[in-house]
């Protein structure tokens, strides 16, 4: 079920543009509001739905299995660290879900750009960027270099 934007609710903050891993959330050049430019390429991670502070992004099923008339609304409450989903079926039935979404404060996770840029020496190590600090450990285990026995090789 790809996402779409209620343009009258969107305030054009760009949070969804930043977070979309498929880079399909963009800004409409006529109204300067967000829109999903290619619903077929949406892999339905719902990152934009969860990130939207205005609750302006909704999800809609493909017409062949989800006829018009249903709705899937999302309410994110960062102060409570919850996200609530309200699924309304075409025949009027409703299902409501609430899930915890965070164990840490909202906004406390650093973005990759907030870390210091790696040096040339860092590229020569086997560790990935920001390891081991980002994993909250002192160091990663390493293998000792292979020392072939003399006379075998």
């Amino acid at each position, binding site marked *: 079920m790809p996402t779409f934007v209620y343009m*009258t609710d969107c*305030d*054009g*903050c*760009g949070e969804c*543009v*930043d977070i979309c891993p498929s880079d399909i959330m*963009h*800004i*409409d*050049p*006529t*109204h*300067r509001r967000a829109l999903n430019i290619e619903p077929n390429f949406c892999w339905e991670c719902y990152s934009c739905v969860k990130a939207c*502070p*205005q*609750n302006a992004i909704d999800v809609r099923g493909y017409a062949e299995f989800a006829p018009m008339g249903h*709705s899937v*609304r*999302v*309410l994110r*409450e960062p102060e*409570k*660290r*919850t996200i*609530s*989903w*309200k699924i*309304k079926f075409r025949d009027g039935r409703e299902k*409501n879900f*609430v899930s*915890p979404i*965070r*164990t840490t404060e909202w906004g406390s996770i650093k973005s990759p750009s907030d870390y210091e840029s790696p040096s040339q020496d860092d590229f020569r190590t086997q560790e990935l960027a920001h390891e081991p600090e980002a994993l909250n450990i002192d160091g990663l285990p390493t293998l000792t270099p292979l020392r072939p026995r003399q006379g075998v090789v």
Partner: protein
Amino acid sequence: MFTSNPFADLTAFLPPIAMQVYITLMIVAVALGTVADMLHKNSGKYFAQRLKNSQAAATRELSGADKASLAVKTIAIDVATAGEFCNVQRRISHVLMFYGFLFYVGTTAVMIFGYPTHATPTPMVIPLLWNIGVIMILIGGYWFFFFLRVNVVQDGQPLFRLVLADLFIVSLLGSVTFAFIWEIVQTGDNLTATKIAFGLYILFSTLLFCSVRWSKLAHMFFKPVVAFQRRVEEASGASSLPAPATRNERS
């Protein structure tokens, strides 16, 4: 300079009646543009549909006092302090432009209709408010144009690639910038420079008020109505959003 009526000096080459006719024409242009915008987008039809749907979905009846309280909240939060913006910088920029625009347009009309010539001395506070309005728009507007436009900051579009969404901010900034330049140039004795600056001011002002059908100037009329309706829907239980969760105790 900032406490004298700049429009009174215009009488050297422009009769007051011409300025008054121009203002009247611009008011008519804004009214026609707003109606054309509503007809084009079918805003009235969709809003009526939304009203009907929300009334059908309401779980509780709101009293007159409830609605009055919601109206006060809408004016205090959504209108007066641009509460819909989640980004603080955009909110401040919008507030600066909103009040600046009110001062700028309001005092322009007062000076042109009430004190068109030096024969009727203008109270100092009116040109001062006009200048304060101009400066507020310049600060809020250029801040928005260079640093806050979402299609530039988040979407990575080039700063000077203008799109239709920029029509309002560009024409507003053009109008106010050349108004300020014209006011300064007018204090010198160069009539040609004054006429050029004034011509550019009128050009951008005309663009601002005659492009309502394509720009977003009309949002100042319908946004408060939509904000009020949203509050009514939340209060009456007609909102399509899930109910707020109880606190997540385990986190």
